[in-house]
């Protein structure tokens, strides 16, 4: 049985290693998944679910991106990228054979160790499913290690949903419960319509033995934590994924400082009771 992957640190954190694009898969009109391999016989990157890399598009710039592949499959590095700015836009235009620079992995990981033997509810909003996908891969490879598992996924429209084929496969496997909703839909959509928090009300969660992991826009995570707390689940059992602008990714530059935390170093995964109070302070 595979071990729980531990958060890894790169040997040379400030030097990008060249990686070659092996495959580009378009997930949605503005979102692609890139599969990368080390160029020139470079070393593969082992990571723990939740960790991220800095991806450098030469001549354009560098951005932090969650690793979205299978942590047990280290020969290939997978990133899912939504084009919203100059660098992510450039990443969205890459083709097979293009080279990018990778620094990483960085940051903290989802609490797979603590969740052992417990139920897990994963709540993802939009592109937030990407950093949670490695958790699902790990659970599927270690199914007996965990109790009931629920994936609650919300997107803006049916077109924006990620990993549609995998969602179907996960649903049909029924080794965990998958619920998907969209905020807006035409009448031709036969799935659920409503915000992702409505899904939290629809699943049978046992407050005494569940760990909740949430990833999505900050406002969505705040609403979701509130809904989960309504179910009697303590904040200490809830983990959220924080994002801030990052530069160095190793806690030197202070760009991502948030109160006493560096998001790149102490985060991006935080226990909700330790980070949520800070979100209420506007000055931060």
């Amino acid at each position, binding site marked *: 049985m595979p071990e729980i992957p531990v958060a890894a640190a790169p040997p040379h954190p400030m030097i990008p290693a060249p990686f070659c694009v092996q495959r580009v898969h378009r997930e949605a009109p503005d979102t692609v998944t890139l599969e990368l391999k080390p160029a020139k016989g470079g070393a593969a990157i082992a990571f723990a679910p939740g960790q991220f890399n800095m991806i450098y598009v030469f001549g354009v710039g560098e951005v932090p991106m969650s690793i979205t592949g299978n942590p047990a499959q280290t020969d290939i590095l997978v990133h899912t990228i939504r084009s919203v700015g100059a660098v992510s836009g450039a990443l969205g235009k890459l083709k097979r054979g293009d080279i990018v620079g990778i620094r990483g992995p960085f940051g903290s990981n989802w609490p797979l160790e603590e969740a052992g033997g417990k139920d897990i509810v994963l709540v993802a909003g939009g592109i937030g499913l990407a950093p949670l996908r490695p958790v699902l891969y790990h659970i599927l490879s270690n199914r007996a290690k965990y109790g009931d598992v629920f994936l609650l996924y919300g997107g803006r429209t049916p077109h924006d949903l990620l990993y549609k084929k995998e969602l179907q496969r996960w649903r049909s496997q029924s080794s965990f419960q998958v619920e998907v909703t969209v905020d807006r839909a035409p*009448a031709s959509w036969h799935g659920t319509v409503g915000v992702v928090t409505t899904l939290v009300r629809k699943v049978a969660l046992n407050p005494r033995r569940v760990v909740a992991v949430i990833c999505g*826009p900050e*406002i969505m995570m705040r609403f979701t934590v509130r809904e989960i707390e309504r179910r009697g689940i303590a904040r200490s059992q809830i983990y959220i994924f924080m994002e801030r602008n990052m530069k160095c990714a190793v806690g030197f530059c202070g760009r991502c400082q948030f109160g006493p935390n560096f998001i790149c170093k102490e985060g991006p995964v935080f226990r909700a009771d330790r980070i949520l109070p800070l979100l209420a302070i506007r000055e931060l």
Partner: protein
Amino acid sequence: METLEGILAEHPFAKDLDKRYLALLVGCAANVRFDPGQFIFREGKEAKQFYLIRHGKIALEVFAASAGEITIMTLGAGEVLGWSWLFPPYQWKFDARAVETSLAIALDAQCLRTKCEADHDLGYELLKRFAFMVEQRLDSTRLQLLNAYEFHA
């Protein structure tokens, strides 16, 4: 065979409801079934009932000439469909259409309003339950309006 009272008592809306009130509700209740595509009510028509959904999926829709049918939200097992029966002029503000074969308990609005006027304790109990549901829906609508996914990467 399961009684209507038993079915009603199992619905989350009626959870921990006093047996006396449950009996009053049963007097206004009926089992209903909707086929996929069937309209349950249409915008502008009189809101004569509301529904406790037991099974299936029901879409609340609005029709706009420029965009066709737009689904506002879907409701499923354990949820409540309709509160326009509670407030004058008792008219539906949206269309409701079954997406899947759906089973529900229909509660007659006039019957229930009359009982609530006669027994304000029952009225207060029901209003508390509706207010909770409305608060949840308002919360969801606020999150929907924030369009949180728009710029998230």
